[in-house]
């Protein structure tokens, strides 16, 4: 990684670099990875490894092709690869993480100038690309028992698919299912099933001050309140809201994707606005969108608005928010 020798004041640096932040995100993702291998078997690991390899290699090749210094060592490509893999079902054919990773880095991240310059979250854009191109793969998920029987190395697998729980929550779920959803004993995308592992990651990121509380808290609370206020199906509102929170990718996305510093606002107020926007849009996409899951498109739409949120909330001289000696 490139280093800068400090020549001007301050002649001191806190020592936390971009790679240290990315390393913390990777550490925060490890519980979910371990759980996914435990619950879905080694095919989950194969998909994750291929996805990371694809993102890292694409970045390397892009840097070589454009004769730039390699930026792989900032570890952001590894994070993108991990998040992309975690958004895929374990039944996905093995070329899918490779294609998605190449798209995320080669189309969404690097052409805009690399880390910090992309306006969409690369992993999420990769997932949206796969979702639009191959909707069949995302039409159902293998139950944990079926998934463990899948070959880790077969390019594509045939398995009995069950519809995701998103449909089921409208018919009502019992308490045992809710507990299973919390621990992650359910069918779903590789890294998104275990809310417990996601909470562990969230706590680690908060303690290490990698992310701030505003986005996940605003996102999830708005999502929860809206789901509680406008429940669907015959189940009681509270039960429905909790089940909505525990199924799909909303929990994972709010902690690991919406908090991506590059594609989220910079100020605290902006982060709250962004979180509220994501929460509201997620529910709207879930209720009225053609795809089952709303978080992917909600965050991508919110990404495009970050520029304006920043413009609105950056303290200005005339605005007089808090500038002053």
């Amino acid at each position, binding site marked *: 990684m490139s280093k800068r020798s400090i020549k001007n004041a301050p002649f001191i640096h806190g020592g936390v670099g971009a790679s240290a932040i990315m390393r913390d995100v990777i550490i925060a993702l490890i519980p979910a990875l371990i759980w996914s291998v435990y619950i879905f078997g080694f095919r989950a690991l194969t998909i994750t490894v291929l996805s990371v390899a694809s993102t890292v290699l694409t970045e390397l090749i892009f840097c070589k092709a454009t004769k730039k210094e390699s930026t792989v060592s900032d570890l952001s490509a590894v994070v993108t690869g991990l998040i992309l893999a975690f958004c895929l079902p374990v039944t996905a054919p093995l070329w899918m993480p490779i294609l998605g990773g190449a798209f995320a880095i080669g189309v969404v991240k690097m052409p805009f100038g690399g880390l910090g310059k992309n306006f969409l979250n690369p992993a999420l854009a990769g997932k949206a690309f796969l979702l639009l191109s191959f909707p069949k793969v995302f039409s159902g998920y293998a139950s944990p028992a079926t998934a463990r029987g899948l070959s880790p190395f077969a390019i594509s697998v045939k398995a009995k698919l069950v519809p995701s729980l998103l449909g089921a929550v409208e018919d009502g779920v019992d308490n045992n299912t809710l507990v299973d959803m919390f621990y992650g004993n359910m069918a779903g995308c590789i890294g998104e099933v275990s809310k417990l592992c996601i909470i562990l990651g969230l706590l680690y990121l908060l303690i290490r001050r990698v992310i701030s509380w505003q986005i996940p808290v605003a996102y999830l609370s708005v999502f929860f309140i809206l789901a509680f206020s406008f429940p669907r199906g015959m189940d009681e509102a509270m039960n429905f809201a909790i089940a909505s929170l525990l199924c799909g990718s909303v929990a994972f996305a709010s902690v690991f994707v919406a908090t991506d510093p590059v594609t989220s606002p910079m100020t605290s107020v902006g982060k709250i606005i962004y979180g509220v926007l994501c929460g509201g849009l997620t529910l709207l996409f879930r209720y009225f969108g053609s795809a089952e899951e709303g978080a992917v498109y909600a965050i991508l739409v919110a990404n495009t608005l970050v520029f304006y949120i920043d413009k609105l909330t950056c303290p200005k001289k005339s605005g007089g928010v808090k500038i002053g*000696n």
Partner: protein
Amino acid sequence: MAYSFSGGISLKTENKTRALPTKPFAEPALVAVPLSGCLPAVSAGDFVDIGTCIGFGKTEDCPPVHASVSGTVVSVERRPLDKGGEDTFVVIKNDCRHTVVSGLDPISKPLWEIKPEEIIARARNAGIVDAGSGKSLASILRAAVGKAKRLVINCTESQGYESISYRVMAEQTEAVIKGAKLIIYALGLRKADLVIEEKKDKLIAKIEEHITDKALVDIKQTTSKHPISVDNRLIYAVYGKRVPLGGSPLDAGYVVIRPETAANLYRALSTGMPMIHKRVTVSGDSIKTPLNLIVPVGTSVKDIAELCGGTKKRFKRAVKGGVFTGYAVGENAVIEKTDDSLLFLSSVKAERSGCVRCGKCIDACPVGLTPSLLAAYGEKGLYSEGLSLGAEHCIGCGCCAYVCPSGIPITALIKKTLKEGRTEDEQA
């Protein structure tokens, strides 16, 4: 509850020099006393004693300069300064006899017989300069007459290495309090506040022993976050008053000085000795033995480095003015009356990448700017855009560049915006 402000950074490293008693260093072979704009009163070959006036101030606000050692004047020369510009230096060869100039005039009469103007005049003639603001004490006092409401002794040191204010408060408690009372008297004020960082319980207990009247001199405790030691931040944190842009704390009604200045005033009146010594903390990661020193004004960086056991192998640059806000100096630079510290630092490297928009600089900025945007404008040369985002409010504390995970020299880029933007304005 300690007074605090939003933003800033808490340093995790302990300031080790606080525990070191101040040592006098009186024997540099040569000193080069900067005249700070004064006219030289001596020429090469003259003999000077300690305290001999070697530079006349042209104006009321420009105090005289005195010889800090006894010996022969080797030369009077112009030298460039590391912070920019140049200055006249009187180079004196030390004869180590410590002869003191005759005719020092200590005041022996009781306080109520001294006129306020006399205190200000004495402050000027003693050449006392306040290290915090870099101004002479006399000009600070003269500007404050009738305008100030309270005296603030700023004892905070938040840059991690400096500890001279701490040492002055521990070693010269009586002199500081008496100096503060002299200033209160000279300006007709009611009260002085000693502002100290919290959790210095031993020191605070010691100062409290010396305070006889709490209504007159009181202690206020603040956070130890950087940049609390910047006067305007301190005034805002403790009193909640904002100093107008480009103004000094006096515009909000406060006279702010460092404790050493108060002690110097008391000494100047009680002994008649002008300000010829400066306390400095010599520290940093590449000096062998960090020390708190009292050195004659004009002692060179090289001599101080030798006294402190020399520099370590990794030594890269000497820095005056603090690790966050200072500037690099060469080995021939000398200690001036405004220097609190001399740091010997190794080369620091920061990981460099593009801005990741994490917003850490925004959280750290004590004046509520958006440093990341200002840096981006500075890099692209969009200076007027930078100014319209409030670049001129920047106090140069360095918090943004310290926390930046992308290693962007934000503070330097904002300074560039200010410099270039102002020239653009003038040309337009």
